[in-house]
């Protein structure tokens, strides 16, 4: 009796999930656009031959119908469980991401740890086409673009679906999203998208500042201008500690400096001067980022969440008038080097 009971439970738990591996079409990258009130879903699908990838599209008034239409074009069932990246067009993001996020969060045939990107000035279908043409149809090409970004090493800046939804649900914090665009027939990283709630507000060029203030930048490379030339300085182990008294925000930024190239010659005379230059340069970058987000009234740094702990009666438009002060405390790492002149 016990054995039969066990068998029945096992059947109820599992037997519907059976699928052979050669009866599925594995989708690796998805692109979502909206045109004339119709969703267009493009998908990169693992081909039958080795190293072959195909692009398939499906349209529909809802995401469900678009996926169903996409499936009709395929000989096997579309398998979404291994989708690594979803690219959403900026037009769609301006309308609001909520319907898309809702669809994927509730859909159990897709894992929620895929990366979300916005397509900047191009449609996501074009991005997928470019990926396919440049033989970069590998599913993690796009995430790699950000991983090996020359200027900034984003530690975990690329947002997965769950991270984005977490940020959206958090009070006093607005999300940002990485964007990609096409340049010279290659997919490259583009400006950072700043969102207010689930809607795209603007694309920001001040990515470094945002990354530092959000504590995502591990190390950055900074150019310090002197009269004609410039020196290249690397800032490492950057860490921001944010404190508040309920009215104003104090950012204590620590880190170390190492000089990579010095073409300024004797213009940078000593340690103190170097520190001063770096701090001045950094202050400028951070101010720009803060001012930009203040103009958009989008608290992407999450100061609202911090303030509401001290100040229960926080106004809804607290961010535009918020006083934010940045305090720097950098140390020079390469003291032995002959890179600046006493």
């Amino acid at each position: 009796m016990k054995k039969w009971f066990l068998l029945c439970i096992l059947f109820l738990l599992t037997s519907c999930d059976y699928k052979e591996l050669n009866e599925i079409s594995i989708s690796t990258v998805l692109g979502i656009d909206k045109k004339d009130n119709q969703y267009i879903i493009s998908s990169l699908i693992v081909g039958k031959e080795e190293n072959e990838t195909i692009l398939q599209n499906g349209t529909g008034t809802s995401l469900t119908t678009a996926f169903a239409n996409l499936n009709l074009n395929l000989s096997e069932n579309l398998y979404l469980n291994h989708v690594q990246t979803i690219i959403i067009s900026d037009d769609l993001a301006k309308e609001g991401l909520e319907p898309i996020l809702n669809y994927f969060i509730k859909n159990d045939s897709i894992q929620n740890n895929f990366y979300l990107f916005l397509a900047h000035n191009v449609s996501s279908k074009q991005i997928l086409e470019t990926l396919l043409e440049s033989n970069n149809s590998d599913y993690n090409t796009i995430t790699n673009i950000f991983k090996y970004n020359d200027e900034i090493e984003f530690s975990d800046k690329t947002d997965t679906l769950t991270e984005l939804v977490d940020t959206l649900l958090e009070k006093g914090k607005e999300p940002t999203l990485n964007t990609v665009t096409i340049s010279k027939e290659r997919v490259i990283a583009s400006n950072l998208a700043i969102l207010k709630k689930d809607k795209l507000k603007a694309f920001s060029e001040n990515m470094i500042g945002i990354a530092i203030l959000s504590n995502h930048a591990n190390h950055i490379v900074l150019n310090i201008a002197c009269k004609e030339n410039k020196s290249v300085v690397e800032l490492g182990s950057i860490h921001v500690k944010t404190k508040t008294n309920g009215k104003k925000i104090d950012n204590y930024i620590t880190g170390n400096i190492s000089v990579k190239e010095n073409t300024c010659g004797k213009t940078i005379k000593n340690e103190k001067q170097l520190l001063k230059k770096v701090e001045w340069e950094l202050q400028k970058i951070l101010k720009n980022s803060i001012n930009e987000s203040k103009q958009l009234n989008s608290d992407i740094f999450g100061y609202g969440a911090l303030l509401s702990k001290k100040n229960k009666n926080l106004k809804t438009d607290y961010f535009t008038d918020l006083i934010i002060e940045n305090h720097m405390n950098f140390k020079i790492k390469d003291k032995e080097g002959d890179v600046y002149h006493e």
Partner: protein
Amino acid sequence: MNPNIEILIQKISETFHQSSDLKIRNLTIKNHKVAYLFIEGVSSGATISEFIVHSMTYDIKQTKGNIFHNLFDTLQNIIPNDSLMILEKEEDIPYYLSSGFTIVLVDGYKKAIVLESRQDLSRGISESSSEGIIRGPKDSFTETHAMNIGLVRKRIKDPNFVVKDTFVGKRTKTKVSTLYIHDIAEMEKVNKIIDKLSKIDVDGILDSGNIREFLITKQKSTFPKVISTERPDLVCQSLLNGKIVILVENSPYALIIPALFIDFFHNPEDYYQNPANVNLTRFLRLTAFLMTILIPALYISVMTFNTSILPEKLLISLYHQRLAVPFPTSFEILLLLIIFEILRECDIRIPSAMGTAMSIVGGLVLGDAAVSAGIVSPIAVIIVAVTSISGLLFSDIDMINGIRFWRILFILFSTFFGIIGFTVCLMILVIKLANLKIMGTDYLSPISPLNVIGLKDSFIRIPKNQDKERPSYLTTKNKIKLGGKK
């Protein structure tokens, strides 16, 4: 016993149904009718002619006067023989005849003289063929019972080492010896075994394998509850640990009782090597055990139910490999496993001259051709190869068969229920193992129930000079094995 020699010979001859290998010779010595009987084949003709017949015909004439009371006494005293016995019961005669003894009958006496004249039918001590070893004693048991006991006795010279004989089999009258060390083994268990052996009522026992089923009857198990080995050093190690050994006449395999699950991960060689290296070997054996049981089932469940747990690159690689294969994954694996099992069985039975041809065909069919023909995927061949090779790490054939049974069970659970079925099957296996008991000892000792002393020689082995006690699940008597009195 009938004193009339003619009637007696007639009776014996009838008992053997006038079998042609029963040889009867009649003599007349000092006006007395004398006869000697033996069975050709089991008796040594040379011994009979040189000693027995010579004494009866020549030496007897040399005995002057009347030293002995009668002819029977004279014969009994002048025939040179190391194990001369006097029989008084008629029904014992067939046993001694069949065992190779010569029976001397003298007319008018109610007894017979039994003389040792057994033919040496042994093949000599050779190296173990089924349990290979690199470092350690190379000898192994043979079909000769006395020699087998001798191989153990020469290693354990303690008078406390005891051999108790029981005769089993109505027709075969096979000698079954129970070996134990009196002051280590628990007598309760020894008596239980001897009692069980004496109660066996069967017409024939031809190998120790026949005895096993009569000894362990309570719980059925696919994993062996008795170790069968042809290595005398393993037998001695077990005896010293308080285990009991059964040796069966004409069988080169000794049975060691009780066998615990952990014992199949041990090898007598482990104790002759550096303990640190042995720990790694034992870890490999455990890994191989898990791999050989679980890998095909895990592969099936991951390929058909739980694809999502695969990393992307692996998934895509597997996807391409599976595309051309027309069969379901589980059928593919089962097919390959069955072919491999057939090959293995062939390899044991087939004459060695044909082995090379078979391995070429087997290797090609299993490996290259099946993949090229698109019948199976390369990864399935790898899975089956890894599974099979891991399974061959165990030398005990019963263990291999037990593993094979569970492997198939795991495959069936995974085929129908995916990873959940796999987990349930794993639970069933652990529960089954934990539930087993052999003569009061838990099969999973010393892991469950936990026994710290036993753990010192389990999946790890601490050096012999630190291993002081025998674990309590084997014996509660005389626990100290290092230092102390004995």
